[in-house]
């Protein structure tokens, strides 16, 4: 009978021990993760700020550099008292803990969800032809030259080798954020080149993700490293494109219904949380379908981008974005293994140079053949050449799936950094006041009606801007500030999109010709309402007597 209690005791301790041991291990893991996050947040913020202030370079580069510095291949490997190395290089394709890499994956989903939300399909359709050709030219040149450079340097065995395909895909995606910031600072956003770059970048985003979908699908099928026949390649491509097109179609068709249901939850916070849930669900489904998670996240964003909730969502997700995205870039920097890059530095430089030339030629050449002169073509090529988050995400996917090694990952980071540094230099030099459009061509983007109102003083223009924004809100439009320092607003409802800009004493409204009558009538009513305001001002007490009342007794002391 003694056996029984003994057995129970043995069993109980057998259960308890691993649990207690596991609990301690888990606690240790979590402590390490929290400390890692703390260091990452501070380092990325400092790195970003330093690069911005010292070199006027994008913060992203500072965040990447901070990651390289604190990562497992640099300071992170230095043992700390009582803790050991904070970022010890783990075995496996990703030299970081799965928990930390999981956070970076979540960040990449949020990033691409927001990128999808920001994709302006209306712009894509409006400036379709020239922008489409520019975007497609950039993609074809970048992908083929990127993949071919891998073959030339012996990094890949052939064009269809997964490593070559990944290097092609990494070189494909433009990150137009830096260009957009420069263009708006220089007030060149509305120029034909600016419009074409922004339109081309949309095509680039959409097609770039399709390229990624196909490449990831193929890479997953070719895990063993063997090359596939054309039959299976075609099947994978068809599946990837089919999933992509099907989800986009379903997303755009159902988006309005889904948002109607979400609006029943009332608060904007609830809507944002639900939308993020949809993005994560789509990301998971996309991965299960054999594609990358970011593809699903991008599709979720793109589907919701056509609804009137888009600006609310962008604003709500922005907080999460500003916290997670520096973590993402910092983690990407941490993955760079310097020792593995010794043999590929020359290849990295050539690959970067090819990436630059591919966009300048791929986007510039079609632009030059159509509406633009050489200067305009160069501006467009330079505007399209920075690579950023999507290149890094693709490189991360390649590294985590073992398709590319740490050396090629390092090369990708090198290319991203170099293109991001060089693009603003060329852009700023090329944008002077001369026209970039061929003399015999019409301006592109003329389907947009520009309504300009001039006022006697800037004060009145400012006052009217506030009134006009309120008037549109009263008509149930969403008003969203585009650039904090430029006074540019986007006003939208369903598929109507207007831009409202204050330029000194003038107010400019850009409206699609089809909807300009709505913009014009709302503007007219607001200007006429000034009359009521003037009448009420006349009924006010005279400023003199109001002034006397305000100051009465203020200086009356003896």
């Amino acid at each position: 009978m003694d056996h029984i209690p003994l057995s129970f005791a043995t069993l109980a301790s057998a259960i308890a021990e691993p649990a207690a041991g596991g609990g301690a291990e888990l606690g240790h893991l979590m402590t390490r993760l929290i400390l890692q996050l703390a260091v990452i947040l501070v380092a990325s913020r400092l790195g970003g700020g330093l690069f911005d202030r010292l070199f006027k370079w994008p913060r992203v580069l500072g965040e990447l550099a901070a990651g390289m510095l604190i990562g497992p291949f640099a300071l992170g490997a230095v043992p700390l008292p009582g803790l050991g190395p904070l970022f010890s290089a783990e075995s496996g394709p990703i030299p970081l803990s799965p928990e930390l890499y999981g956070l970076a994956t979540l960040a990449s989903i949020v990033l691409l969800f927001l990128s999808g939300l920001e994709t302006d399909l209306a712009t894509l359709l409006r400036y379709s032809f020239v922008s489409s050709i520019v975007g497609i030219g950039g993609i074809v040149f970048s992908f083929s030259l990127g993949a071919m450079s891998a073959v030339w340097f012996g990094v890949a065995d052939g064009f269809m080798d997964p490593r070559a395909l990944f290097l092609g895909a990494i070189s494909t995606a433009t990150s137009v954020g830096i260009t957009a910031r420069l263009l708006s600072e220089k007030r060149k956003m509305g120029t034909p080149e600016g419009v074409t770059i922004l339109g081309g970048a949309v095509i680039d985003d959409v097609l770039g993700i399709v390229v990624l979908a196909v490449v990831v699908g193929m890479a997953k099928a070719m895990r063993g490293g063997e090359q596939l026949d054309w039959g299976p390649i075609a099947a994978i491509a068809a599946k990837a494109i089919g999933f992509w097109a099907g989800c986009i179609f379903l997303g755009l068709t159902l988006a309005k219904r889904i948002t109607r249901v979400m609006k029943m939850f009332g608060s904007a916070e609830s809507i944002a949380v639900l939308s993020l849930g949809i993005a994560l669900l789509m990301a998971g489904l996309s991965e299960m379908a054999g594609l990358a998670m970011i593809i699903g996240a991008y599709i979720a964003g793109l589907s919701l981008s056509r609804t009137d909730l888009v600006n609310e969502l962008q604003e709500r997700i922005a907080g999460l974005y500003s916290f997670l995205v520096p973590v993402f870039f910092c983690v990407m920097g941490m993955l760079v293994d310097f020792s593995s890059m010794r043999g590929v530095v020359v290849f990295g430089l050539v690959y970067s140079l090819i990436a630059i030339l591919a966009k300048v030629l791929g986007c510039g050449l079609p632009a030059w053949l159509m509406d633009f002169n050489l200067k305009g073509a160069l501006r467009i090529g330079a505007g399209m050449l920075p690579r950023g988050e999507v290149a890094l995400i693709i490189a991360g996917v390649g590294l985590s799936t073992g398709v590319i090694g740490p050396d090629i990952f390092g090369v990708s980071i090198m290319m991203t950094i170099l293109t991001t540094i060089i693009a603003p230099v060329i852009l700023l030099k090329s944008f002077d006041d001369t026209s970039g459009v061929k003399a015999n061509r019409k301006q592109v983007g003329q389907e947009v009606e520009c309504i300009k109102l001039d006022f006697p003083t800037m004060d009145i223009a400012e006052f009217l801007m506030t009134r006009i924004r309120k008037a549109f809100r009263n008509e149930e439009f969403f008003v969203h500030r585009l650039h904090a320092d430029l006074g540019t607003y986007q006003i939208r409802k369903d598929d109507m999109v207007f831009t409202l800009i204050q330029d000194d004493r003038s107010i400019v409204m850009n409206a699609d010709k089809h909807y300009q009558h709505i913009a014009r009538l709302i503007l007219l009513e607001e200007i006429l309402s000034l009359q009521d305001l003037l009448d009420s001002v006349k009924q006010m007490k005279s400023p003199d007597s109001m002034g006397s009342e305000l100051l009465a007794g203020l200086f009356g002391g003896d």
Partner: protein
Amino acid sequence: MNLKKALTKDTISLDIKSSSKEEVIEEMIDILVSAGKIKDRKSALNVVIEREKKMSTGMQNGIAIPHGKTDTVETLVAALGVKSEGIDFDSIDGKPSTIFIMTISPANRTGPHIQFLAEISRLLNDPATRQKVLTAQSKEEVVDTLQL
């Protein structure tokens, strides 16, 4: 935008009797009163006249859009009137006005009020649509033409 809810057969008149701008406005207000859409006739009339004083709502090609905002209505109410001979409505192009669209909307509630006017004006900007409304034999025909 749901034009159907705001403009119904009982607020359409194909036979406007009045022959001056002020009379047309009153007649249109009366249509809305008879249809039970307006309770406070005086205040509705007042806001439309006040709006006309700032700038005439006589647009181009015979279209006029007298309107106003008052809290005496709960939602947007609208009426459409036709007078094929036309009357002088101080229009922008100086031509007599033949089709009148009146809206009264709540002053302190959000909604696509101006958008409604803009949408219907855009529909009537098409000469063929305008002609169909002008020669319509029944209110149903107007409703069909404007695809309400």
